[in-house]
């Protein structure tokens, strides 16, 4: 017989769970509201979601740095807090994008908002733990919800996107569990800190097996981060999903993925497992470059942005490969800056969304031609879009320049000068496709005069969000320093 187990509430550290609980309870609340009264307007749910996320964010700030809770399953370190802030901030920007002036299928479901909140909770679990099981379950919760959210857009391409994402996700899940199994076989534990401990005590006795495990993990996390060659889903899924969701996907799942990658790989990198470093080096370079050159030839802005976000992810992965505190802090800085810019860019696409694909052969929703001569029709819109593009291209003083600066600096400081040069060259290449859009908007004449309505989907909330993003994009320089202080304190505190 087993002893009865008594657990004191304090040792559980319920606070570590508070943010996720907020999201989950909120989601359930939405479901309940829907049960009680049907046909409530989406605006209600949007605002409810925002409020819930706000409370969630508050709870995140309420978390104590370095806490562990629930039998050490939960881990609230700097990374967890930072990434949760990013996740929540992106979510709060994303949800109001539902307030379009056009009606879209997904927003007619209250479940959409519930699923969304579940997904947020899933991501939060994913980042707030170093237990492979919880990471896995959190990941799957979020992913399953995300597949559904994509499909709810309800048109053929969304389904196609969802199915592609889903099937590849299932394979990646397979990789993940195999990786976890190998680590478990090696160490008898599924908790990263213990894995690290045992591996280093044993002196990496069975190196081959360790590397096999890492391989599976790279494959699994690489899928989330859309590293080449696990990236193939990204452009299709972004294209199929609504622009708003695509923007969201380019930010949030990736930051969760980064945190997991950091937790998994850093322990090896810090133990001087050169292999990981080298493989990541290659992967990073290939991801950056390949995504860039494919983006060059895209005809659709959204697909281009998809490839660009792959490239950006590659850029940021370099920080994990470098592995210094500066690099890891730079990662967060980069991603926060990227959040506003990229979400803004996708929001612009969202705003310019037409129900029917009327440009060219109808293959794309947002072909470049659509934006031809936008400066003559929608000067402000064109300028805003151009600002986002310049920022993405890394033209100073717009936000992403500072991110690039810090990451390249981190590379330089760790003697990865070649890597920094590759980053520089890639930035230059990437400028081409961003410029292409600017060229279309500013330098070409409108192609068909009848189809010059760009802001059909724009509503005040959307404009506000975009305005907010623009503001942050332009004046990022003023925010960099405080942000950097904040981030590096937290990253340092979590020992990365």
């Amino acid at each position: 017989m087993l002893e009865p187990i008594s657990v004191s509430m304090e040792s559980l550290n319920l606070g570590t769970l508070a943010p996720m609980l907020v999201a989950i309870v909120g989601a359930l609340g939405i479901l309940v509201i829907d049960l009680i009264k049907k046909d409530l307007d989406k605006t209600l749910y949007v605002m409810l979601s925002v409020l819930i996320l706000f409370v969630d964010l508050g709870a995140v700030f309420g978390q104590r740095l370095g806490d562990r809770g629930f039998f050490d399953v939960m881990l609230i370190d700097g990374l967890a807090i930072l990434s949760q802030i990013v996740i929540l901030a992106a979510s709060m920007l994303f949800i109001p994008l539902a307030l379009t002036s056009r009606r879209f299928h997904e927003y007619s479901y209250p479940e959409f908002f519930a699923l969304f909140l579940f997904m947020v909770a899933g991501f939060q679990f994913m980042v707030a733990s170093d237990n492979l099981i919880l990471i896995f379950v959190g990941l799957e919760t979020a992913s399953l919800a995300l597949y559904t959210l994509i499909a709810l857009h309800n048109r053929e391409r969304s389904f196609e996107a969802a199915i592609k994402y889903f099937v590849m996700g299932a394979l990646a899940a397979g990789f993940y569990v195999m990786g976890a199994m190998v680590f478990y076989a090696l160490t008898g534990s599924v908790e990263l800190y213990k894995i690290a401990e045992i591996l280093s005590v044993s002196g990496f006795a069975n190196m081959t097996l360790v590397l096999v495990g890492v391989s599976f993990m790279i494959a699994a996390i690489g899928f989330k981060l859309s590293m080449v060659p696990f990236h193939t889903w990204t452009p299709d899924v972004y294209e199929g999903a609504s622009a708003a969701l695509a923007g969201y996907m380019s930010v949030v799942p990736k930051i969760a993925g980064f945190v997991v990658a950091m937790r998994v790989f850093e322990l090896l990198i810090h133990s001087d497992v050169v292999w990981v470093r080298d493989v990541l080096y290659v992967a990073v370079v290939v991801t950056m470059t390949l995504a860039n050159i494919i983006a060059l030839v895209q005809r659709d802005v959204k697909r281009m942005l998809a490839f660009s976000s792959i490239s950006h992810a590659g850029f940021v992965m370099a920080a994990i490969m470098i592995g210094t505190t500066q690099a890891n802090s730079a990662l967060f800085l980069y991603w926060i800056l990227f959040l506003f810019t990229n979400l803004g860019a996708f929001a612009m696409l969202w705003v310019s969304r037409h129900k029917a694909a009327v440009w060219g052969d109808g293959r794309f929703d947002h072909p470049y031609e659509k934006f031809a001569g936008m400066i003559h029709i929608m000067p402000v819109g064109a300028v805003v879009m151009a600002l986002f593009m310049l920022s993405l291209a890394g033209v100073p003083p717009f936000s992403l320049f500072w991110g690039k600066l810090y990451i390249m600096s981190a590379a330089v400081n760790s003697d990865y000068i070649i890597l920094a040069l590759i980053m520089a060259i890639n930035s230059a290449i990437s400028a081409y496709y961003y410029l292409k859009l600017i060229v279309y908007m500013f330098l070409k004449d409108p192609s068909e005069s009848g189809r010059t309505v760009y802001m059909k989907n724009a509503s005040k909330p959307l404009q506000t969000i975009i305005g907010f993003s623009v503001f942050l994009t332009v004046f990022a320089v003023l925010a960099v320093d405080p942000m950097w202080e904040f981030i590096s304190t937290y990253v340092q505190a979590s020992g990365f």
Partner: protein
Amino acid sequence: MEHMETYLYIALFAPLVGSLFASLFADKPKMLVTGIGTSTLLFVSWVSSVVLLMHVYHGDVVHVKMMDWIHAGGLYIPFGFVVDQVSATMMFVVTTVSTVVHVYSIGYMDHDRSFNRFFAWLSAFVFSMMVLVMSDNFAGLFIGWEGVGLCSWALIGFWYERESASWAANEAFIMNRIADLGMLIGIFLVYWNFGSLQYDVVFAQVDGMDATILMMTTAFLFIGAMGKSAQFPLHTWLADAMEGPTPVSALIHAATMVTAGVYLVIRANPLYSLVPEVSYFVACLGAFVAIFAASMALVNRDLKRIIAYSTLSQLGYMFVAAGLGAYWVALFHLMTHAFFKALLFLGAGNVMHAMDDELDIFKMGGLSKKMKWTMIMMTLASLALAGIYPFAGFFSKDKILEVAFAGDHYILWAILWFTAGLTAFYSFRLVMLVFFGEERYKIFGFHPHEAYRYMLFAMSPLAILAVIAGFFEHDFIHLVSYALPIEEYEVSHTVFWILVVITQGIALGGIALAVYKYSHGGFSKKWEETFIYKLLFNQYYIPKIYDEYICKPYAEISTIMWKDFDLKIVDATVDFIATSIYKSGMASRVVQSGNLSNMLRWMGVGLLILLVAAILYSPVR
């Protein structure tokens, strides 16, 4: 002394004022006032020059520093002007000739559409020339140097509608630029070795300066002189420059600008006198050019080109003198030559006027009846040029022969002596063909007439000077002895007289031959078939060689550089990099086939690669 500075500034800036005044009306139709105004101002300048000449006659020097120009690092260049004996002489020559030419031009350019523009440029030229001769440093000299080049360009190409004129203008400018590079390098050498560009500072340091440096400096400076003074091999532009209006030829391409090279050598005599090798080279080149140009003048049929070649030839004489260290002789010949050569050109201008700008002397003849005064003045000038006593040329040219002989440079002497004969011959060939003999112009339907009276008046001072200038030799020696070394040539009295006699002999012989031949119908046609004639007539094929082997290849290489190298290699490389990146993007799209099966397989491939890496790599760790 103060008022001397005023005279200096007046002499210097009066032409500039005139030029600016005339340029105000440059695109207006003819206004007599521009011609008169500029002429008056030049006269003022002349008066000031004469006053200054008087002033420096007794050894005073006027030296002013107007203002700073360039000061960078250790390089300090002011706008400084100096009127010493050399520059005063030059000023006198320049202002005299240019005043005459200005007045003459009022008549000559009477019917020209761009009357005002002409005077603007002409006065601008005089200003530049004054800067050139008056500057107290090499940089200022260079300003004038380039300034006269510019004005020469504008005046040669004055009738820019003509392809040949604009071509000649550019040729002159570019040729001069080639030489200017040499000059510039010379100036750099001076600066880096002497630390200054001021004549006095530089010349004070020449002793003890490294010989190689001195040699390089003088050599490079002389390259500059070669361009301005149209010495071989940079001589072709001078003949082509005859495309310009004739007064321009008289002023620029006979009397003043082309002598700037000689002036430079004279001015830099403290340098040159220390480098015998270079000086000797200068002399040899001068002798060569003297006979070389004279030979071309023998057969040419173009009225102005003949005179141009004679100018070239005479410049050769001056360089011989300068190269042999007889700087004052060179300067003297420069002066006398200016007078009679300008006169010759102005006479040629009259003829051209009469002949409706026809230049072929074989289409003229017997003009003396219609143009008596012109004939007289041109004959005077020709006599002076041939060096016949008592005309000005005799004194200066004979002195050069004497110098050559006294310096034991017998070969040089022989060349010059022979050239003297040639000079006499071609001068009188010209006079004979133009003014005497059969009136061929009638065949071609010309109606010649004498020039305006005041044009003839305008020429008269020059005619007088061409006759009497030689008698001022002693005054001249006295004057320049303050600034230039005056050496006594150890030639005995007997030798001196023998030299005079044989020189006069060959000159008179040349004249006699010309008069005889051309009063009897000239040379036979067969002569024109000979190789020598063709060689000379085609100017030794040098222009053709330049055209074929320099200009055309340059244009071709340029085109190749542009079309084949710049566009097809340099730019194409850049574009190639860009397009290959773009194409590799196209190629990489296979990854993105959109087929789920393929996408899954790509993931598998990724995993496989990682596993292979893991297995292979693990021993390395």
